[in-house]
C-alpha cells in the first residue's frame, strides 16, 4: 500500500514537472513546417507527411520497417501461434461475408497506398487495412490456409526490408548518397518502397495478431 502511495507521489511529481515544462514551451514553436513545405515540390509527393516519412526522414522509415520485421521474428521466436480451427460449413455466413469484405479491404488498401502521395494515407494506413483483412480471415477460422505457406509468408515479411535496402543501394549507385533519389524520380522510388512495405506491414500486423510462429502440424 505504501508503495502505491509512493508511486502516486512520484507520478504527481512527474506530472507537475511535465506540466511546468509544457507551459514553458514557446507559444509559436519554431517547427519545420516552413522548411518541409518549401522543399515539398522536390520531394516527389504532395502530401507533406508522406514527404517527411519517405523522403526527408525516409531513413527513420527504413529502420522502422526493420523494427516491424524484428517484431515478427521476436514473436515467432517466443511462442507457437495457436488457433482454434473451425469448420467453415458450420458457419456459411462468415464465408460469404469474407467473400465480400476481403476484396474491398484489399482494394481500399491499394487506394490508400496510392492516395498517400497526395493526401493523408500511405503504406502504413494501407498496411493496417491489409492486416485487418488477415485478421478477419483468421477469425473466420482460416488461419491454417494463411499459415500453410511458410516460405511465402517469410518472403512477404522480409519483402519490405529487402526492397527498401535494394532501393537504397540502387539510388546510392546513381547519386552517391544514401536514400538520395535522382532528381524528379522521388515519386517513383517512394511508390516502389511503399508498395513493398504495404505487403510486409499488412502481413506483419496480421501475424502479430496470430501471435506466434505457424505450427507445421497445428490442429
Amino acid at each position, binding site marked *: 500500500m505504501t508503495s502505491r502511495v509512493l508511486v*502516486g507521489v512520484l507520478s504527481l511529481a512527474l506530472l507537475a514537472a*511535465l506540466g511546468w515544462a509544457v507551459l514553458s514551451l514557446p507559444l509559436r514553436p519554431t517547427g519545420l513546417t*516552413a522548411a*518541409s513545405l518549401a522543399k515539398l515540390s522536390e520531394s516527389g509527393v504532395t502530401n507533406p507527411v508522406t*514527404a517527411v*516519412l519517405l523522403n526527408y*526522414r525516409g531513413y527513420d522509415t527504413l529502420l522502422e520497417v526493420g523494427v516491424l520485421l524484428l517484431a515478427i521474428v521476436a514473436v515467432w521466436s517466443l511462442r507457437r501461434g495457436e488457433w482454434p480451427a473451425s469448420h467453415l460449413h458450420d458457419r456459411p455466413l462468415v464465408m460469404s461475408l469474407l467473400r465480400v469484405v476481403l476484396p474491398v479491404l484489399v482494394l481500399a488498401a491499394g487506394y490508400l497506398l496510392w492516395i498517400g502521395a497526395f493526401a493523408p494515407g500511405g503504406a502504413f494506413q494501407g498496411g493496417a487495412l491489409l492486416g485487418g483483412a488477415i485478421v478477419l480471415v483468421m477469425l473466420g477460422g482460416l488461419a491454417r490456409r494463411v499459415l500453410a505457406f511458410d516460405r511465402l509468408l517469410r518472403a512477404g515479411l522480409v519483402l519490405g526490408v529487402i526492397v527498401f535496402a535494394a532501393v537504397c543501394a540502387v539510388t546510392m549507385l546513381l547519386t552517391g548518397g544514401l536514400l538520395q533519389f535522382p532528381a524528379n524520380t522521388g515519386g517513383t522510388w517512394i511508390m516502389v518502397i511503399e508498395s513493398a512495405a504495404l505487403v510486409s*506491414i499488412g502481413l506483419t500486423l496480421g501475424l*502479430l495478431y496470430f501471435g506466434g510462429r505457424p505450427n507445421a502440424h497445428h490442429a
Partner: protein
Amino acid sequence: MPDADYRIYALAGVALFAIGFYSMLVQAHLLRRIMALNVMGSGVFLVYIALGAQTPGPIPDPVPHAMVLTGIVVSVCATGLALALVDRVQAAASEAEPGDDA
C-alpha cells in the same frame, strides 16, 4: 485559434503519460501493465500532435505527425512483443501469475 490552445492538448498528453506511468508501476496484472504502457505511449503521441498543431500557416507541422506514425508502428510492435512474452512466461510458470483475474 487562441494561443494557449495546443498546450492544452499537450497537457492532456502529459497527464495521460503520468497516469500510464502510475499504473504501469502499481498494476500487478501483466496485461494491465502492457495497457498502461500503451496509455503512456498515447500520451506521448498526443504531445507530438499538439506540438505540430501550432504553426503560423494553415497546414500543421508534418514532421511531428510523421514521427508519431513511426512511433505508433513501433509501439504496436512493442505491444505484440510484450504480449507474446507475457504469454510465454505464464505458460512457463505452472501456476497463474499473481493478480491474474481471468
